[in-house]
């Protein structure tokens, strides 16, 4: 029939086929794409590569990283023998994990409230975390320093944990709100009718659907605290050394021990990479919702 052939005769040009790229052959287009990806990848990977290289060079070869052929693991051994570094490593892991675990519950419920509830309590809470987000991060530090001193929690786990939990809640509640916005609330309505309380509908229906979001949240919280420097610098000292701060202490009056600092940094990279590797699936699907 003629009707069937009508639309095949004049195919509409596909949107992406117009413009500059349409002038290239498909092969050239693909080559261009790969070149671009490799270029961007290189820009991102280069500092990391340099860091790893530096960590493998002897102290004498620091400023000729690109030239020498002499490689060594001595930097790592030296760092491992440093009690402070090991202690800081463990402290950082414990604090990142504890802060994540402790903040997760509040962040999730707070995100859920922001997503589902209207009214004075929800909008009040919204304003509070909004204000905290608007304040420059650095301006929290001095009050926190004085506060932790006065409360006697300066340079303890608690003294660093509490501010971190607060930051997690303020910064990641939004993320969680986004996840819940993407989950159809009628599932919870069905649960209410099926005999659940409001809390029950949240825990038994909304929460299981938010698992990818929760996993993404946990990864982001953990990495945040693991990498955080400013709070750690001002709220901790010799009692509770933290990795990022210890790393910075290779800069001292006698110069900068680039090789040791690099080795520590590479060690710090390990868990972060591991977490990212296992968590990225969730982070990606979580952020897609």
């Amino acid at each position, binding site marked *: 029939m003629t009707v069937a052939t009508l639309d095949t005769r004049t195919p509409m040009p596909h949107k992406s086929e117009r413009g500059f790229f349409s002038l290239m052959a498909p092969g050239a287009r693909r080559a261009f794409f790969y070149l671009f990806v490799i270029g961007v990848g290189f820009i991102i990977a280069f500092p990391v590569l340099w860091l790893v290289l530096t960590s493998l060079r002897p102290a004498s070869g620091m400023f000729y990283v690109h030239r020498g052929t002499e490689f060594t693991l001595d930097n790592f051994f030296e760092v491992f023998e440093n009690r402070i570094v090991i202690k800081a490593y463990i402290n950082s892991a414990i604090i990142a994990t504890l802060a994540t675990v402790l903040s997760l519950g509040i962040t999730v419920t707070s995100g859920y409230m922001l997503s589902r509830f209207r009214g004075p309590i929800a909008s009040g809470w919204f304003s509070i975390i909004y204000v905290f987000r608007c304040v420059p991060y650095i301006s929290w530090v001095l009050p926190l320093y004085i506060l932790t001193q006065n409360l006697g929690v300066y340079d303890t786990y608690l003294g660093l944990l509490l501010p971190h939990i607060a930051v997690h809640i303020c910064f990641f509640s939004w993320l969680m709100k986004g996840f819940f916005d993407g989950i159809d609330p*009628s*599932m919870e309505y*069905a649960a209410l*009718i099926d*005999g659940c*309380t409001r809390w029950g509908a949240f825990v038994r229906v909304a929460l299981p659907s938010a698992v990818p979001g929760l996993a993404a949240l946990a990864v982001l919280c953990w990495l945040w605290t693991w990498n955080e420097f400013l709070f750690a610098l001002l709220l901790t000292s010799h009692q509770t050394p933290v990795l990022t701060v210890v790393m910075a202490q290779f800069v001292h009056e006698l110069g900068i021990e680039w090789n040791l600092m690099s080795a520590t940094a590479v060690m710090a990279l390990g868990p972060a990479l591991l977490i990212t590797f296992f968590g990225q699936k969730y982070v990606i699907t979580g952020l897609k919702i």
Partner: protein
Amino acid sequence: MAEVVLNQLVKSYGGMAAVRSIDLTIPDGAFAVLVGPSGCGKSTTLRMIAGLEEISGGTISIGGRVVNDLPPKDRDIAMVFQNYALYQHMTVYDNLAFGLRNRKESEARIAEKIAHAASILSIEPLMQRRPKQLSGGQQQRVALGRCIVRHPQVFLFDEPLSNLDAKLRAQMRIELKRLRERVPATSVYVTHDQVEAMTLGDIVVIMKDGLIQQVGTPLQVYNDPANLFVAGFIGAPAMNVFKGKLDAAGEKVMVEGVALSVGERNRAALRGHAGREVMVGIRPEHIALGSHGNQLEGSVDVIEQLGSEMHLDLKMGNAAFTVARVAPDAPIRLHEKVTVSIPAERLHFFDADSQQAIRPASLSGALAA
């Protein structure tokens, strides 16, 4: 089963009223369909009955018990949602069992009830699947099953068929009718599709702007629409409406310069409106080609061939109207002049200002009672 009574029900969001004042009694076991255009407050009304929406004013009672302040779980209702709202992280079986487990029924009883519901809906092979692995029609059945297993006093449906394609929708409509025989319960069904309303409802409730326009059986709302809105909303193709003027005796009405007899049935009611402007309605399917009784002449503007019948759009001066049920092989050409006959007894009259129907006394009396 239980009677559902809405008494001066009001819902406002901030200053805006979504439901303005609804009085409605749905008898025990009846299937009531709320129908109306988008945004008229159907879903809001339903959600208030379910307890998912707070009530701004009035009362709702189910089975003689005022439920205004009861949470949804204590109202003994079940609801089917437009997007099915199945629990995505559970199997079909667990979806069906969820409500029963909440009521602490034994697993054996639950299995029995689910088997029964599954056989009614023919969803037995799907029990171990997850909602994402089901087609729209299958999800719909599971959602129905989740309601059936609980044996609630009242079923609530919010546009359950609107996400299905036309064919499946027609099929599910028939299944819903069958289901009613096997699982009788008072039901409130929301739709904007007047075909669903007519075919499913014992009672059709037509709403607009948060108010009920008319309540009646499907035939009542079709035969005697209470106002112009209902007249235009119920029936497809929609009722033709003309501006007209009654003569001094109230026995003839002038439409586009043609005098039509108003018919025996309407004469008494129209007497009070003699000499005034009125709106005259006639359904496309009640107009016939030919020249007996009241006649109008128009030129054919559009021909719609449906196979089983033809629809003609005719132009007559400034007015236009549709004629349905024309024989599909009738020798009619575009732009040709045709004469149609309008049975006087089928005419509907509406007040030009209030848009309310001017109905024979016997009828308005019967409806008010």
